[in-house]
């Protein structure tokens, strides 16, 4: 049986601002599974994603991504593991400005294990799969929708086991949000990557077979 894409056990984390505490006794996402982490703003969804990505240190507990215990790694080893196993999509895309679409996708490859000679072809194929033809255009010249497609391609570049999408449609109108989610879900499915998507938008629930509420893990800090 394949390793789960995500396996969280006994995770505890106190938000530095004292706004809330996260306590996740167990959370598992199978390979290729897609789940929505729902909940209102400021409830800890983004914080949980950053913990999974190894961008924050939990107080205790463990997080395994594709069989790699992220919480046991530190420093450069954890950065490398994140680069290989986790793809991230952000609300504001967080593309590298001044770089082309292809270069943005290749940025998602340069810290991984794929030989550099294969990067251009991989980037071109990914951008084609998300419908971007102007791969040498600076991302600043692309439309918002095109920028999001580049961001999706970049998240999938290193063939991650898990894609974390943090409010990917929060800044889009309903029509564009729907097509963006279509793209993200289809791309992850085709790539065989599990998807954990956060959103405070109730209309997103219907797109996912599995919906978890962050409220189950977070509680307001009494301090």
């Amino acid at each position: 049986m394949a390793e789960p894409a995500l396996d969280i056990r006994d995770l505890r984390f106190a938000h530095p601002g004292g706004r809330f505490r996260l306590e996740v006794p167990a959370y598992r996402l199978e390979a290729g599974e897609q789940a929505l982490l729902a909940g209102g703003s400021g409830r800890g969804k983004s914080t949980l994603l950053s913990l999974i990505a190894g961008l924050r240190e939990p107080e205790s507990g463990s997080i395994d991504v594709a069989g790699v215990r992220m919480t046991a790694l530190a420093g450069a080893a954890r950065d490398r593991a994140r680069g290989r196993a986790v793809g991230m999509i952000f609300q504001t895309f967080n593309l590298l400005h001044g770089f082309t679409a292809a270069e943005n996708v290749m940025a998602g490859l340069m810290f991984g294990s794929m030989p550099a000679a294969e990067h251009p072809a991989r980037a071109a194929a990914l951008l084609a799969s998300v419908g971007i033809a102007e791969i040498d255009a600076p991302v600043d010249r692309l439309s918002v929708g095109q920028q999001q497609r580049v961001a999706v391609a970049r998240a999938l570049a290193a063939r991650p086991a898990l894609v974390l999408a943090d409010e990917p449609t929060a800044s889009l109108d309903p029509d564009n949000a729907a097509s963006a989610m279509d793209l993200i879900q289809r791309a992850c499915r085709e790539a065989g990557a599990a998807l954990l998507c956060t959103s405070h938008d109730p209309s997103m629930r219907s797109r996912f077979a599995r919906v978890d509420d962050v409220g189950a893990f977070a509680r307001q800090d009494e301090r």
Partner: protein
Amino acid sequence: MNAKALTDTQIVIRSLQARPLSTWVTVAMVATGVGLLLVLLGMRSAARDAFERGSGNTHLLVSADPSPLVAVLNGIFYANAPANPISWAKYQQIRGSFPWLWAIPTQQGDSYRGYPTMATSAEFLTKFEPIAGEPWQLAEGQLFERPFEIVLGAAAAKGSGLRLGQEIFLTHGSGASREGGDDHAGHVHLEFPFTVVGILEPTGSAHDRALFIDLESSWILHAFDRREREGLHGAIGPADLTDADRLITGILLRLPTRPGSDASAAMQQQFDTLRRDTSIVVAQPADQIRRLFAIVSNVDGLFIAMAAVVLVSSAVGVMLALYNSMAARTRQVAVLRVLGASQGRIFGMVVTESLMIGFLGAAAGIVVAMVGGIAAAAWLRSSLGLVIDPGLDVRETIIVLGGTVALSALAGVLPAWRAYHVPVAESLRPTA
């Protein structure tokens, strides 16, 4: 598609390109410091070489100037025309006091278009060597043989555009006088045309700026002026010269030496003997040049220290520019971290960026120094007649280049430290 993978270096280069004003200003600051330092280092050694070379094979210089140093600056480097004359009788007395290898009288005071004239004996061009071991060479024509013939130093010929056979009139005085018209300069000796009979090869000494005539011609010019003042008009010849006309301003002396040696055992004794005569000063040119450089070396060191300060302050400028740019680049750093870049790799990128600025600045500074060196050499040649090699010392250049790159890399440490500590999760939040 650009078929190359993205590399750390490309990211660094794009970062520099993304803020062109800041990048080029900091590069220019580094270039200024490096250029200044290299020019000063280069000019220091080149000027010393040129001065030391310029004293030629003279052992002693006798003059009536106020001090030996002034005597050397005037008599060999044409800084000014010596103000005080030496009588011909004194010259003969000195000449007869010792079996000199040669004793060459010189007289300065006139000029042509700012180029000083040296009235002297034929020995000046046949026995005196402007560069020790390198006698004068004629580029064109011949040496003066008769009165009112003139031989041009290479720089004077080039600067004035004079050619063989042309007739010119000398100006009384050594300033930037011109023929006719300029009331503030000395008057022009319009009664006595000189014919250009020879042009000398460049020697790399101050003498290249001079024009050479025989002593008698110069005496006649000034005797004519004297007679005009006395109301005596008409033609004048050698027979009309009096002892008061036969004046010189310097004597170049060389003592006999052993073959293959430039030193003379009798030098110190003759030097001391001549020094006892209070009507003259006697100088050992090489010694005076060393003293001159001992005096200016403090100023010289100050300039080099200032250039070093400029270099260090440019490194501080690099640091500030990079450090401030980090505020606007936290998101880029955070994105790279999310994509898998380690803190160490981010640190390395920022230091590389600083190092690139340093390298670009140092490279530009070397070009600036080369151009500046050529310009300074041209100025020294035209104004002082000093021929210096404007080329940069390879060893010094490599040291300055390496030092600048190292200094720049060091300047990148603080901004790199800031990038190292960028809070990734917080920096990726959507902005309003």
